[in-house]
C-alpha cells in the first residue's frame, strides 16, 4: 500500500522529535514569563506543563483501568 508523508517511519520520528523539542522549550520558557497569578501555584516552575501531562496520563489510566471495566458492554447490550 502506498504510504503518505505521515506514514513513513522517518517522518513520524521527525514529528515526534519536533514535539519533544517544543515541549522542552516551553518548559524552560516558564523562567522567562511574568504571570499575573490568581493562585500561588500558578507561579511554581513548570506548573502548567506538569499539570497537563499528569492530568492527561491520569485521565487515560482512570478511563482505561477503572471506567472501562465498569461500564463497557456488548454492542447489542440493550437489544
Amino acid at each position, binding site marked *: 500500500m502506498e504510504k503518505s508523508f505521515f506514514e513513513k517511519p522517518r517522518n513520524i520520528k521527525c514529528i515526534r522529535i519536533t514535539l*519533544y523539542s517544543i515541549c522542552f522549550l516551553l518548559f524552560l520558557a516558564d523562567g522567562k514569563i511574568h504571570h499575573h497569578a*490568581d493562585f500561588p501555584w500558578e507561579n511554581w516552575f513548570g506548573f502548567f506543563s506538569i499539570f*497537563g501531562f499528569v492530568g492527561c496520563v491520569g485521565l487515560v489510566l482512570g478511563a482505561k483501568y477503572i471506567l472501562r471495566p465498569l461500564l463497557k458492554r456488548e454492542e447489542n447490550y440493550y437489544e
Partner: protein
Amino acid sequence: MSNFPPALLFIGGAFCIPLLPTRLRAAFMLLLPVVGFFNVMTMPEGTYWVVPFLQFDLIFGHIDRLSKVWGYIFHIITFLTVIYALHIKRAMEYWAAFVYAGAALGVVFAGDLVSLFIFWEVMTIGSTCLILARNTDSARKAAYRYALVHIAGGLLLLAGIVLKYHNTGSIEFGFLGLHGLAHTLIFLGFGVNCAWPFFHAWLPDAYPEASVTGTVVLSAFTTKTAVYVLARSFPGTPELVILGAIMAAFPIFYAVIENDLRKVLSYSLINQVGFMMVGVGIGTELSINGTAAHAFAHILYKALLFMSMGAVLYRTGKINGTDLGGLHKSMPLTTIFCIIGAASISGFPLTSGFISKAMIISACGAQHLAIVWLILIFASAGVFHHSGIKIPYFAFFAHDSGIRTKEAPLNMLIAMGIAAFLCIFLGVFPQTLYSILPYPEAAAAYVPYTASHVVLMLQLLFFSALAFTILMVTGIYPPELRGINVDCDIIWRRGAQFFFLIVKKIIAPIDSAISHIYRAVGLVLLMALARFLSWFDWNGIDGLVDGSAHCVRSIGRRVSLVLQRGQIQQTIYYTVTFVAVILVAFVWL
C-alpha cells in the same frame, strides 16, 4: 419598526420549503438566514411584538445585547448547515431544521414564559424529526427516548410556570433566581435541555443516531438555548458552578473509551457546556461575557467537527474508531478542516476557543474558586486529549484502514471551509466577537493575548500531546474496542425493560390467576345462583301468582254459585242491600 420576529421568518419559511421546486428551494433556504441575520442586526433594543392572548401578554421580541448574541450565531449556523445539507433531496429534513431553528430563536427572543414554553416544545418536535430522518430502526428508538426525556423536562418547566403564575400572577421572563418550588421546577426544566449530570444521557444517546446533517443542526441549538435561558434567569447561582465543574470533567473520561466518534463529540459537547455553566454560575460581567462568547465560538467549532465526522460517515458509511483510519489520503481537505475545529475546541492560540474559554477561566480565577479553576484547567487539557487529538487521529491517521473514498461533496467542503475560516478569524480578531457581547466595557477591557497567557496555554496543550504520544508509543493508550459504555440512560432504558419484565413476570401472572379463580369460583357460584333464582322464579314466584289466580277463580265460582241463582227478586234484594250498606257507610263516615 420594519423588523419582524425572527422565529416567524424561519417557522413560516419552513412551511414554504416543501412547496418549492428543488433549485428555488435551495436559493430560498440560503436567503432565509441572511435576511434573518440583517433583521437581528437592525433590531433596536427593547420590547416588541406584544400579542394579547387570553389573559396573557405574549412578548415575541425581548431584544437586548444578550439575546442578540444568540440571535446572530443561530442565523450563522443555520446558513452553514443549509450549505452543508444541500445534497439532500427530501424536504422533510429542511423543514424540521427550520422549524427547530425558528423555535430556538423564539425562545431566545421570548419576553414571557408562556411563549417561551410553546417554542420550547416546538424545539422538541423539530429535533425529534431530525433524529427520525436517519430512518433506521435504532434512530427511531433513540428519537422515541429523546422525545420522552424532553417531554418530561418540558412538563417540569410547565409545572414551574403554572405555579409561578398561580403564586405571583406574572409570566414575565427575566431574572428569576433559585428560590421557591416554582423557580426550582423551571430551573430543573431548563437543566434537562442543558444536559446536566444525570439528565445528560439523552445527548450522547440521541445525537450520534441522527442523520449526517441532523447531528450538525442538533449540536447547535438545544443545549445553547438552555444556556441562554439560564444566563437570563439564573445568573450568579452557585449551584451552577458545581454542576458546570462536574459537566466539564466527567464526560472526558467517557470520551477516552468511546468508539463511536460522533459520540466522542457528544461527550465533549457536554464538557464545553460545562464551561458555560460555570460562567453563568459565577455571574460577573466577565463570566457572562465569557459564556456568551464561548457559546458563540462553541457552536461554530462543534458544528465544524460534527460536519467533518458527518462527511466521513457520508463517504465511508462508518463512524467507529475501530473501522476508520488513514483517511487523510482520501479526504485531505476534510482532514484540515477537522484539525482546525479540533484546535479551536482545544483552545489553541489564534483560534476561537482560546479567546472565549480564557474569559471563563479568568472569571473563575478572579473569584478565587480554586477547585473549580483546577477542574477547568484539567478539562481544557482533557478536551484537547480526546476531541483535539483523538478525533482527527483515529479518523484520518492511526493505522490505515484500507478505506479509499472520495473527498467530501463540494457543498460540505464549502460549509466546513466557512466554519473553519470563522474559527480562525475570531481567534485572530477577537474584538469582532467581543464587540457584540452583553457587557461591552468589560469585554473591551479584557486582553486575551498576553505573552504569559499564550505560553501557559501552549504548555498545557503541548504536554497533553506529549502524554498522548508517550502513551501511544508505549502501548498504554487504551485501544479502540467495539462495544458501548453504559451511561445514565441505563436508568430509563433498562428501567423500561425492567418495567415490562415486572409486568410480564408478576402482574400478568397475577392477572391470569385472578381470571382462573374467577372462572373456577366466581362462575360456578354465579351459575348456582342463577339456577337457584330460576328455580325460585319457577316454583316460588310463578307458584304464588298461579296460586292466587286459582284462588280468585275458585272464590269467584263459589260467590257466583250463591249470588247468581237466576231469581230476579233475590238479585234486586242483594243489590239494594249492597247500595244501602254503601250509603249508610258514606253518611255515617
